[in-house]
């Protein structure tokens, strides 16, 4: 049994402590926006925020997360897709298949929280998630757009 703080709600989950946080989020909590891509923290499709830092949830044991850790998934990033990153993503149609985009958006949101006006180099270093459709060019543009969104994060 574990107690998790996900998107501001405390939840009890009955699961083996070695279960990756990703699969607890997807299968016990039922939030499927966070995706499985590789299981070895390579692709970033499983990116969530834990205490405002972006983390790859496939490689974190649920037993290592406490109820004091604030976990935010893509479903909890904003209401009505109102986060500047989501708005920028929509404005220039970043997603193609979309499967990796939850993770991309979470990575971008964490970057902007830390570095509100990122340079291209900042983006290079922070946005390391894999996109097989190849939306990288639009991701870069959208991160800059979100950084310039006056409504702020």
């Amino acid at each position, binding site marked *: 049994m574990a107690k998790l703080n996900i998107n501001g709600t405390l939840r009890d989950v009955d699961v083996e402590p070695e279960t990756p946080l990703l699969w607890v989020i997807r299968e016990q909590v039922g939030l499927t926006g966070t995706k499985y891509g590789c299981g070895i923290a390579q692709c970033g499709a499983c990116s969530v925020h834990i205490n405002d830092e972006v983390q790859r949830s496939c490689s974190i044991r649920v037993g290592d997360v406490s109820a004091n850790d604030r976990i935010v998934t893509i479903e909890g990033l904003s209401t009505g897709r109102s986060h500047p990153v989501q708005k920028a993503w929509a404005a220039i149609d970043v997603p193609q298949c979309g499967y990796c985009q939850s993770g991309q958006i979470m990575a971008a949101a964490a970057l902007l929280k830390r570095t509100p006006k990122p340079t291209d180099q900042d983006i290079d270093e922070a946005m390391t998630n894999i996109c097989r459709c190849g939306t990288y*060019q639009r991701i870069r543009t959208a991160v800059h757009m979100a950084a310039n969104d006056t409504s702020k994060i």
Partner: protein
Amino acid sequence: MNNIVCGSAARLSRRTFVVGSAVAGGGLALGFPLFPLPREIGAARAQAAATEVNAWVVVKPDDSCVIRIARSEMGQGTITGLAQLVAEELECDWSKVSTEQVTPGQNLARKRIWGEMGTGGSRGIRTSQDYVRRGGAAARMMLLQAAADAWQVPVGELSVANGIITHAGTQRTTSYGKVATAAAKLAPPDAKTIVLKDPKNWKIAGKPMKRLDTADKLDGSKVYGVDVKLPGMLCAAIKDCPVFGGKVQSYDEAKIAGRPGVRKVVKVKDSAVAVVADTWWRAKAALDALPIVWDEGPNASVSSASIAEKLQEGLTAEVTNGDRRNGDAVKAIEGAAKKIEAVYGTPFLAHATMEPMNATVRLSADKAEAWVPSQNVEASLAALSEASGVPIANCDVYRIDLGGGFGRRGGTQDFVHQAVEIAKGFPGTPIKLIWSREEDQAHDFYRPISQCKLSAGLDDAGNLVGLHVRVSGQSINAGLNPAGIVGGKDMRQLQGYYEEPGDAQLGYSVPNLLIEYVMRNTHVPVGPWRGVNTNQNGVYMECFIEEVARQAGKDPLEFRRALMGKYPKHLAVLNAAAEKGDWGKPLPPGIHRGIAQFMGYGSYSAAVAEVSVSDRGKVRVHRMVLALDCGHAVNPDQIAAQVEGSVALGLTATFYGDCRVKDGRMVDLNFDSYAIMRLAEMPKVETVIVPTYDFWGGVGEPTICVVAPAVLNAIYAATGKPVRSLPLKNVRLV
């Protein structure tokens, strides 16, 4: 096209079928529900208020229009593009357009009224554009006729814009929503009376409309195949024998007894073992803990080295499996003033879709259903029926938008077969099978491996007098479509080298030309991979032409142009890339350019790459300009998106892509060793669309094949040495 049965009785029964299948749990009935949950069944019933004007167009009382889509969306934007084409002819209000999927079961029940559903070969729009536009136009004509009947005026006196019908003479207006019910009762117009718009007058098609399917990709609400949830569902993880062709010898189920949530261990056919549990993670963890002994069979000694030897032998073998020729290339090269020869090679590649293979299947007493992210739902339906033994009329497949396809999810529905085999042990219970990334990498249908020997002869003036190209490699048809091999000839592997115009024509005239294919198959299964075989053949031809041009002492662009007089479309695209790519203009120190052109999937592509190579041999691609003539440009922004994506996919293959074989199995099982290019390495991409509007070409695949050769030719310019094998990670450049 629209062989619609007319009359209200027939129409009523058709709608009854539609709604009935939703209520019965069929899901996706011409409404949107994928999953037969109570809320969504209610939504489907509410749908019944909408009126089907014809197979492609449903109009609601609030004037919104639902456009039916038969092709698969995997990110390439086909839903938006097809909807634009229908809406253009329909003259509806684009801001009120939504789309819905049809199922292959519905298509079958209605005598394939929606045509082919398979989505591959960059055919989604180009092979259905005519009948979907006609569908939109026919619906418009029926809606106008209904208004004319109501007003008792000649239909010719009516005009329509944005779904509002106007009779100028009496200053009356009505809307599609108001006349749809009457329109649906009318006979469809005679196909001969349908006149499609000149693209010059397009207002919706041809414009960079926003995608219709972006919103739910931004907040995690979009449901992919791996996200399917059904009442009572169980999850399965699977391991197939790592050596292709091997079998399960034994497994020790006792070792995982008592693990939480585990329901059953299932042998799947004779080569795989699956664990079924209440959650996928528990199934996967139990499978990893299950000792399995494999009978690896005769292929367990095959390696990349033994495969390379086999291909190499094919480069000089006597018997060939298809060719094209004019003149006598061998003789011309023998007698030439200067001879150039090179051997190139490209490896197996995995598709590595971000969403691993999966399928959810529910078998009941008299019914089989599957939820599949599929590029070919009709193939999924056939696989479901064949594997389950349920007659096809009692089967249906609910397609879910794909988390990447790239050719992997088309004709080969291996994951559906597996899911059905597992579901047979759980009657009435939905089984969701998901492959691990490792399984996905270990059991792909890989891009075919090949080597290519090229020889050329130049005369004293540096003119190309003879060219001999011999590809030795694995055949897709041999494994997946033996009927495609006629009299031992398999021309599919020579894609891009054809003499015939229209699809994948070689854009060069050579007085003495011989292009040959030698089939050398391995035990590794191969299949279509976004852009096969133009990717490999593009590298061979365009890098070798570069070598020849440099040996001739000529500018690579000018050398190509001289060979392209008979191929104006190829040449125009090459010129567009050269112009926008600043060919011949000064470059900053350390930056070098490369150029390439090739044709595939009915479209013409060219690229210019700007590349630097560091003292330590590190390559950086700074900028790529790609030109594309796809005939008609339905959505320029989405075409640009496909071109940008093709650069990322092409550069991953150029730099990293390599599926090594050792002990008969694949070595590179996850993204740690099968690296994928990241954002930091993405060059600036500029897309130049030069549509000539006199044909319909593909978009998703054509530009990939010029990415690698343009980059390799720029590296050649930088280092003075040609690169003849991929990926670059295995090549020492300095």
